């Protein structure tokens, strides 16, 4: 008799636990990636104690700055139910404009920077315009503008690179070191963290943020609630473009050269970071903070696997598995018990 009752009780208990976990993850989408991050840090530090060295951690954070910044803009777009495949191309175009105008056309540094940021915002505006006015799907629009921005960048720069020595100080300012205790960060890293704070505040604490989420969640419901969804979408694309411009600035400081060969994998990497960070590709769900964890996870795997002395192809493999697990988790979370 008891043998029959006990298992069912246990089953119910584990079901309860699963349901509670599901609810918690549903409410705080950043918890999942945060725990994966903590777990992977622990595992990699056990494999190789040098992983937790101040030097290694500092390098890791410096390396992640550009991708994480790009992923902020990507998160905002994915939250609206869209996707941006032109992320890297937009950043490269902004980067080439900054570097070229300053180095070759004698434009003063600050103005060159503003020009580059404006170009970033303009790429976002073009994407947003095509999505909201011409009513094309974001995937197609940004697939097209990926090629367009890339070719304009190549044509504009003639494929030539601009080196840090030829650039005004302000453009390479983002590469300046900032020492915090034993850790060595850069102003670019701090700029990235500030951007995360600002984006997180805007998305979670302002009406605009609510409108972004609701537009991605159910555009028709948002419209019927009196939200001008097209205006919200356009603002998201422009803001994201501007952020890609900032990422270009951080990139120049990080690698010390403006080249069209930079950021070749940025489009998919940024999407990977967003997805691992727990933001749903279907829109309306997720948090920009999760994206920070997502980008860090990718970087931790890269650093940890190389320190473990394992071939780097396993890092790519691990990334792929993480993406699929993250999406599967998202699907599960969305199936909330009624």
């Amino acid at each position, binding site marked *: 008799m008891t043998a029959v009752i006990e298992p069912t009780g246990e089953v119910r208990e584990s079901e309860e636990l699963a349901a509670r976990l599901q*609810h918690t993850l*549903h*409410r705080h989408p950043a918890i999942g990636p945060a725990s994966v991050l903590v777990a992977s840090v622990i595992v990699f530090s056990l494999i190789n104690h040098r992983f937790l060295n101040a030097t290694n951690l500092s390098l890791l954070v410096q390396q992640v700055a550009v991708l994480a910044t790009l992923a902020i803009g990507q998160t905002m777009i994915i939250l609206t139910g869209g996707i941006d495949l032109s992320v890297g191309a937009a950043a490269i175009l902004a980067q080439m404009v900054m570097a070229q105008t300053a180095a070759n056309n004698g434009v003063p540094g600050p103005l060159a920077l503003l020009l580059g940021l404006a170009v970033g915002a303009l790429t976002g505006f073009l994407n947003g315009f095509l999505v909201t006015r011409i009513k094309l799907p974001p995937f197609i629009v940004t697939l097209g503008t990926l090629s367009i921005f890339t070719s304009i960048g190549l044509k504009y720069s003639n494929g030539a690179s601009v080196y840090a020595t030829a650039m005004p100080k302000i453009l390479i300012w983002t590469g300046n070191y900032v020492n915090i205790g034993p850790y060595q960060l850069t102003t670019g890293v701090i700029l990235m963290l500030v951007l995360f704070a600002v984006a997180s*505040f805007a998305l979670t*604490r*302002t*009406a*605009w943020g*609510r*409108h972004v*989420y*609701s537009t991605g*969640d*159910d555009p*028709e*419901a*948002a419209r*019927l*609630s*009196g*939200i001008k969804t097209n205006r919200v979408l356009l603002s998201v694309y422009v803001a994201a473009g501007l952020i890609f411009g900032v990422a270009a600035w951080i990139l120049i400081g990080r690698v010390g050269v403006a080249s069209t060969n930079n950021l070749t994998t940025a489009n998919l990497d940024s999407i990977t970071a967003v997805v691992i960070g727990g933001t749903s590709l279907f829109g*309306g*769900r997720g948090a920009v903070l999760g994206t920070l964890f997502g980008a860090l996870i990718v970087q931790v795997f890269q650093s940890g696997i190389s320190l473990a002395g394992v071939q780097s192809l396993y890092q790519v493999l691990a990334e792929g598995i993480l993406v699929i697990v993250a999406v599967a988790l998202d699907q599960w979370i*969305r199936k*909330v*018990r*009624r």
Partner: protein
Amino acid sequence: MSTEVDASGVQAGSPGGRVLSGTPTLEARGLVKTFGHVVGLGGVGLKLYPGEVLAIIGDNGAGKSTLIKCLSGALTPDEGEILMDGVKVEFKSPVDARHAGIETVFQTLAVAPALDIASNLYLGREIRSKGPLGSVFRMLDTRGMRAAAKERLQDLGIGTIQDMTQKVETLSGGQRQAVAVARAAAFGSKVVILDEPTAALGVRESGQVLALIKRLRGRGLPVILISHNMPQVFEVADRIHIQRLGRSAGVITPHSHTMEEAVAIMTGATTLGGAADDKSSPATSGGGGNAEAGRAGADRTESAGTDSGTAS
């Protein structure tokens, strides 16, 4: 059920004729809306009086949706006028209608499932924090909105929903509907329009929504209810506007006509004139409500006459 009938009987018989006196809160005159060659509305009139529940019934394609879309600003009629408290109004968008105090719960509910209850109640009209946090940084008064949302829901007797931070998609169908209705009720200062609010709900949940409608009426807020469900319409409505083929086939009351008659008028099997003649003696509602129903039936048929007059 029997207590409900008694209660409404007493209300209908109360002096002052609460339903049909005074200026209509919302009135439509000769609304015409065509879509190419298709006539959506062929000159429809409608009057909604303070504190009544007016049901709109009709077959598919009868123009119910077109009618309420015109009233809620989602469509602009080609001809005819809409008056609120006797003053002509023009709605170019749902936002205009909302500013005028008309809140609509669309069939699709128009809630954002991934947002919490408080965010949904205030979606599109968020409250900002006081001071520079709100004015400079545009920060929302999240706590204030949650508290106010809770108050609104309790006010409407929806005590089962306690946690305002719960995402709407975790709610049951009835609770979701309650949130949508609560939003309309909370902000609809003049009129609440509900499009098929119980279509996707079970019996118990439907009952909750109907109770909510009655509570809105109790607070003096007139409600327009579009529904296919005859028993529900007859349970909750004060008057029933029947749409047929883009025109108003007349207005009846649950006391003057039976469900079968209503369906017959709706499908064109009988016309209201004939039906009204047959039913001049109120054999429909049994018990002590007879005399009341007869009286109510008499002056309501009159009103139905004027309405259908406008329509044809």
